[in-house]
């Protein structure tokens, strides 16, 4: 390409020289071969030589720098541009994709749309104005609903990319949203099933990751200014790594129901070099707590103290369970560690309805019991915590279960809620995507735990391979989660040590040992198999369709009215 450019430039230069000689002469052109012609030719030649040399040098150097940049871009082992890390958009597209002046709820910003304005059909332009006028209450994001694509990429919250040969996992700080991009030319297994975040299929076009997003519903907006789309929208995203810390992102929106022509928006995504992990912003949980709809439990939430009357916590009481054997022929990564990536579903035996064995009771399904230590299968509760667990079975406490509010399930419950999860296994960290919209990052780089003040629903997890077993220790919990619908208790003081041991081609034995000196007298361990299959994740948009919470609240409120009770302490 460079050679063609040089040839074309040389030919153009010669032709242009003659033209310039003639144009540089005011009045009658000099006769060719005369002294005057020679002087003017020399002057024009020198002038053009200078200008052209500078131009050619600049263009050539730009091309060479570009080629050098392409050669020096960080790349994965398979040679693809390495998009991994923590990123965030650096513009005001989250507020309004088009040029906009400042308002009380949005700072001013420049358009990120190629043609400046979005090419709405006339009816849709009117609808956009209605949306804009009502944005304070009508914006789905204001209700903490899933943002859709491309809006989620523009939010002023960081997100994280993990990239393997077969998948790109994008996890977002905002509301624990995730996207799983299958690098695959096959159509999605559940093509045609609409969801808030849609189906994403990716492919590499040279150094550009191209993602086709289909099957999004018509419930999301494109920004906070009421720009919208229909369920016919097809989004084509292109991720181009400009340099180690910059991704040029573009999304082409094709929606013949709403727009007159396809259009493209562009975002600059910058690496968040000051972060080594993203945290959580559980929009709905924070909103509910602020509104008084989700009440603090001073016994379990951070920073609840260990009750003075507690029996001593015997941290050494945990039995030594033997580690299951891993056959040598389980799938493995290039470095020899087991490959535990893919779609998994726990054979949890009803752990979401109790960790101790119990029969079906009323409308509560049974549990086979998952506690393997203590060997009698009984959770070693402190007295207050056992009493609390029994109280949580009462109808008026159903409202208190965080998952009834669609909040996060915590650890280990996220693995047995029950809903499947998808493991994407990177070189130095693992991302777990739970179908019930939440994620976990497991860091394999021997990093420190977070400051005591950072408290998370899903905790902070650091893992290592011990032979063929992945051992994960998690701390920094907030103590808001329940262990199941029955109400098994856990507090912010829990440390969870999980082991993932492959025992067959597509089975992992999972154990979680919970050490919680506030709620228990000693550590205890649960166990269950995780089974892998080739299924794909669907989406659980819990909050967006949660009709149950009001019923549970009615039951709770009616009980309180009858009891003359005030706030639960």
């Amino acid at each position, binding site marked *: 390409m460079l050679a063609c450019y040089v040839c074309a430039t040389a030919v153009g230069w010669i032709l242009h020289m003659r033209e310039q000689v003639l144009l540089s002469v005011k009045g009658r052109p000099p006769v060719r071969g005369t002294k005057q012609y020679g002087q003017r030719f020399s002057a024009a030649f020198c002038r053009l030589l200078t200008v052209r040399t500078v131009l050619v040098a600049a263009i050539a150097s730009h091309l060479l720098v570009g080629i050098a940049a392409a050669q020096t871009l960080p790349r994965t082992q398979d040679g693809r541009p390495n998009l991994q890390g923590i990123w965030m958009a650096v513009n005001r597209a989250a507020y309004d994709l088009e040029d906009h002046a400042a308002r009380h709820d949005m700072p001013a910003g420049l358009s990120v749309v190629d043609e400046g304005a979005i090419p709405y059909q006339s009816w849709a332009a009117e609808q956009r104005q209605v949306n804009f006028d009502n944005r304070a209450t009508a914006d789905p994001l204001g209700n903490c609903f899933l943002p859709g694509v491309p809006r989620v990429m523009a939010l002023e919250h960081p997100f994280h990319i993990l990239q393997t040969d077969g998948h790109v996992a994008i996890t977002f700080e905002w509301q624990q949203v995730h996207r799983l991009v299958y690098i695959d030319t096959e159509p999605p297994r559940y093509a045609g099933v609409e969801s808030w975040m849609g189906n994403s299929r990716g492919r590499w076009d040279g150094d550009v990751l191209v993602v086709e997003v289909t099957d999004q519903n018509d419930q999301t907006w494109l920004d906070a200014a009421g720009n919208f789309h229909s369920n016919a929208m097809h989004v084509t995203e292109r991720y181009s790594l400009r340099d180690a810390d910059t991704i040029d992102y573009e999304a082409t929106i094709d929606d013949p129901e709403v727009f007159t022509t396809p259009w493209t928006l562009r975002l600059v995504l910058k690496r968040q070099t000051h972060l080594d992990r993203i945290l959580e912003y559980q929009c709905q949980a924070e909103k509910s707590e602020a509104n008084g709809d989700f009440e603090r439990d001073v016994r379990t939430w951070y920073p609840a103290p260990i009750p003075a009357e507690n029996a001593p916590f015997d941290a050494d009481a945990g039995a030594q369970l033997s580690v299951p054997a891993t056959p040598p022929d389980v799938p493995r990564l290039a470095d020899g560690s087991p490959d535990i990536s893919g779609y998994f579903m726990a054979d949890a035996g009803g752990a979401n309805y109790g960790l101790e064995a119990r029969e079906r009771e009323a409308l509560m*399904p049974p549990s086979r019991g998952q506690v393997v230590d203590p060997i009698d299968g009984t959770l070693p509760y402190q007295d207050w915590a056992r009493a609390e667990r029994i109280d949580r*079975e*009462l*109808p008026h406490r159903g409202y208190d279960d965080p998952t*009834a509010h669609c909040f996060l399930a915590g650890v280990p419950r996220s693995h047995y809620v029950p809903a499947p999860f998808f493991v994407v296994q990177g070189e130095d960290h693992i991302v777990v995507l739970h179908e019930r919209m939440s994620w976990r990052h497991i860091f394999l780089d021997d990093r420190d735990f977070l400051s005591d003040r950072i408290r998370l629903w899903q905790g902070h997890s650091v893992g290592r391979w011990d032979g063929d077993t992945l051992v994960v220790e998690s701390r920094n919990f907030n103590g808001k989660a329940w262990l199941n619908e029955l109400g098994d208790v856990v507090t912010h003081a829990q440390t969870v040590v999980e082991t993932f041991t492959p025992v067959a081609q597509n089975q992992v034995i999972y154990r979680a040992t919970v050490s919680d000196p506030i709620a228990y007298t000693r550590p205890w361990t649960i166990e269950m198999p995780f089974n892998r299959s080739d299924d794909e994740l669907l989406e659980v948009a819990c909050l967006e*369709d949660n*009709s149950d919470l009001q019923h549970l609240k009615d039951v709770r409120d009616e009980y309180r009215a009858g009891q003359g009770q005030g706030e639960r302490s």
Partner: protein
Amino acid sequence: MTRTVRATTWMSLGLILGTSSGLAHHSFSAEFDINAPVRLEGRVSEMRWANPHAWIYLDVEDEAGNVVNWAIETRAANGLIRRGWRPGDLAVGTVLIVDAYQARNGTSTASLANATLADGRTLFEGSPEPDEPQ
């Protein structure tokens, strides 16, 4: 053909074992009353393919002749989709006989135990195991 009956008889048929409600994100015992079983016969007005629970809306004529729209909570849409059901499969107007447990707050809301089509086939056949993907 459409009426609401407080039914206790179907419980004795062992259908309670077929409880196929959501098994998902909240306590069913807390929201629905096992002592308030209802049998509803009516026509589907809508099905919402939602998570964590899908909802069947059923127009049911009560004893006074008024049509009441019942909201019947069933399993998560994802569980149904994985079993091969797709939005649109349950057409508006489909006649259903539904055994369900009414919500504790006394509204026209219930948790599906069993739904039978006019030809006798069971809707969403088979109850999920507790850990079936929801």
